[in-house]
């Protein structure tokens, strides 16, 4: 079944969609006829089919749909098998809320389980349910004499997973091939440990400060000359303005939350707005002992019980995260993704919808500066017109 996951890699990307790709719908119709061409040779699985736009109601259209449906039935009729070579067995210890692995075989252990000092591998409850559910593992009771059914496995392990929603999100991401591990803030008491990088650009800040002082001095002078300091504006007085940059700087009177120069102290988060899982993209070089920075951090909420976070809750959650963009990113990337972001898995009766919550500050991005730079302006223009 791992082949199926890898197969998504070969989906061709439509030209010109690039950055917007992940915003598009993934609810495409599957063309099952691909399965019919495979026959007995199961080495390569099909690629996803083309989306068929606007059915015209013609005979050939109906024929295509019928063929596809028949191919799906044929595929579902096939016998499903597992090889004994990679079958895992383990024992569930209810008081530890963990399962001990007796025979550790197969590729799963690259990213699943944790070995103790004696070399025994232990599995967390969600890992146990996931493996048993996909048929890769047989689970036994503590005495080791009774094989636990899937139903009993759910009954035994689900309580230790911190909610059904969390297991659903875990299993969903695992099935898609991601590497998923519990974050330190998984439990109620745990807090995510984040190393905040110190701000190194002091001279830049000093220069900016001096520039701002000079600007405000100029404004004062301008107003003194114009002899108008009325209570009701204006901000942009008459007289000569040398550039739109200076006008924009003058207009910037609304205080905003800035990400530059301020040191964020992590605040304590409250369930459910805590990072539950760290997620890595599938990679062959992944090491359980040294996983590195996760690609994504996932929070799980229940759509029925939990509403959207207030800014205080969201801010506390975001304050525990490290910044994710380096200095090479463009302002567009930073504004779309946020300086830091977290993924929220919203579970509603088993249906999972993911959203990214990103921390941005439009005030930190000086997009107006391009109005004066003509060369940059024309460059921007040519890329925008496709």
């Amino acid at each position, binding site marked *: 079944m791992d082949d199926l996951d890898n197969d*998504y890699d070969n989906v061709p990307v439509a030209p010109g969609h690039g950055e*917007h790709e*992940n*915003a*598009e719908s*993934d609810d495409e119709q599957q063309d099952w006829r691909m399965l019919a061409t495979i026959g007995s040779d199961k080495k390569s699985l099909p690629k996803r089919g083309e989306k068929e736009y606007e059915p*015209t109601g*013609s005979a050939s259209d109906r024929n295509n749909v019928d063929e596809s449906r028949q191919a799906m039935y044929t595929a579902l009729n096939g016998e499903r098998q597992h090889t004994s070579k990679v079958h895992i067995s383990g024992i569930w210890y209810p008081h530890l809320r963990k399962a001990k692995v007796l025979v550790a075989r197969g590729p799963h252990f690259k990213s699943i389980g944790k070995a103790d000092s004696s070399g025994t591998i232990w599995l967390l409850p969600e890992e146990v349910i996931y493996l048993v559910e996909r048929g890769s593992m047989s689970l036994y009771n503590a005495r080791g004499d009774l094989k636990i059914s899937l139903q009993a496995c759910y009954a035994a392990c689900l309580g230790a997973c911190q909610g059904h929603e969390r297991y659903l999100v875990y299993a*969903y991401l695992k099935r*898609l091939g*991601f590497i998923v591990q519990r974050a330190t803030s998984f439990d109620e008491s745990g807090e995510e440990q984040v190393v905040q990088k110190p701000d190194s650009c002091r001279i830049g800040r000093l220069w900016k400060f001096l520039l701002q002082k000079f600007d405000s001095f100029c404004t004062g002078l301008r107003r003194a000359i114009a002899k108008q300091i009325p*209570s*009701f*504006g*204006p*901000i*942009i007085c*008459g*007289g*000569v*303005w*040398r*550039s*739109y940059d200076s*006008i*924009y700087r003058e*207009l*910037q*009177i*609304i*205080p*905003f*939350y800035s990400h530059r120069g301020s040191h964020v102290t992590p605040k304590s988060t409250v369930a459910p707005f805590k990072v539950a899982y760290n997620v890595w*993209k*599938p990679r062959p070089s992944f090491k359980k002992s040294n996983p590195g920075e996760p690609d994504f951090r996932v929070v799980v*909420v229940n*759509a029925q019980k939990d*509403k*959207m976070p*207030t*800014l205080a809750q969201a801010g506390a959650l*975001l304050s525990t995260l490290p910044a994710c963009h380096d200095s090479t990113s463009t302002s567009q990337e930073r*504004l*779309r*993704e*946020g300086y830091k972001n977290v993924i929220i898995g919203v579970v509603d009766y088993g249906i999972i919808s993911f*959203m*990214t*919550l*990103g921390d*941005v*500050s*439009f*005030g930190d991005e*000086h*997009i*107006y*500066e391009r*109005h004066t730079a003509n060369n940059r302006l024309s460059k921007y*223009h040519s890329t925008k017109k496709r």
Partner: protein
Amino acid sequence: MKKRNLNAIYHSPLPVEVVALPPLVPHNPISVAYYVYQLVFVPFLWGFKRRRRLTAYLELYTDSVSSYVSSIAVDSYEDMQELWKAGFFGKGTQSRSDPTWALRTAKRLQEASGETEIVAPEEVTARRRAARKRFKNARALAEQGVLSNPADSEKVEANEEPRRQKPTRVEDLALRDSEGNVRQLEKLQLTFQEAFFLAYALDIIDIYDDRTGDLVTVPYLLGLLMPDWSPDNSFIVNYVVYHHYRSHGWCVRNGVKFGVDYLLYRRGPPFSHAEFGVIVIPLYSNESKNQLMRRDWYWSSGVNRVVGGVKKTMVLCYVKVPDCIDKWHTVEELLKMYEVREVVLRRWIPSRNRD
């Protein structure tokens, strides 16, 4: 179709004139002299020059209890064009956005034969839709096997859409004035935030009361727009957001068509689609009030799908509302009592974020 030079038409991002300093070449005495002239004398000469001011009219609606502003609009053609071209303010009351009604009407009345230059965005859309319809009809016929030769489909198309000659209507005669020019019946309607920004921050517009003809001063305008003076008055909260994005170089336009409060364009509608849809959320110092005002995930999912479907990103813009707004001397101080913070919300699709 001839591509218009957008940079030349919409060269300034705000309706304020800017006189740039010339480049300074230190070893060239002429350059230095010219630079000094620009630096010292031009501001002096400008001291005598009055800035061109635009005129808008405010309509008050009065009932037995109180009176409130029903609309603020500009009706001079030059002012409308300036406001649209420099910063994309307002909306033409007879047009989709750009006030093009007079141009379109003049063209229609001319009964121009053949292709003329395309002027209005409405026309571009209409032509594109007609072309798409023709293409779909031809394709449907080809699918059904009615036509095998593509040349036949051209014939069908020609038969279906004959060039219609529109007769002149009686009411069209009233559209022209005595000199034969089309009367200017369109106005450019401004949102209250736009009007306040132009009047207070940029100080380039004079607003007059439609009935009395009196000048509406900025303090009076502010009193009309936020009659209750409550800190979370929707006008002031929205104005803070509007001013914030305008002051950082964004072109801010109304977003009701996409279920958001504001749309943010990097330069303006003719250049590119809006990149962000902004939702304004007041934030109180009382956390339990914020808890009560929380929205559910169905709402965010709905807005996100609409906004994401047109390739925009949803921005939640929180405005920290002060407890009391009685103590201020200038409007600037009043606005500085508020603070904004943004959070972006985007749909995340696992299978598309794996590689």
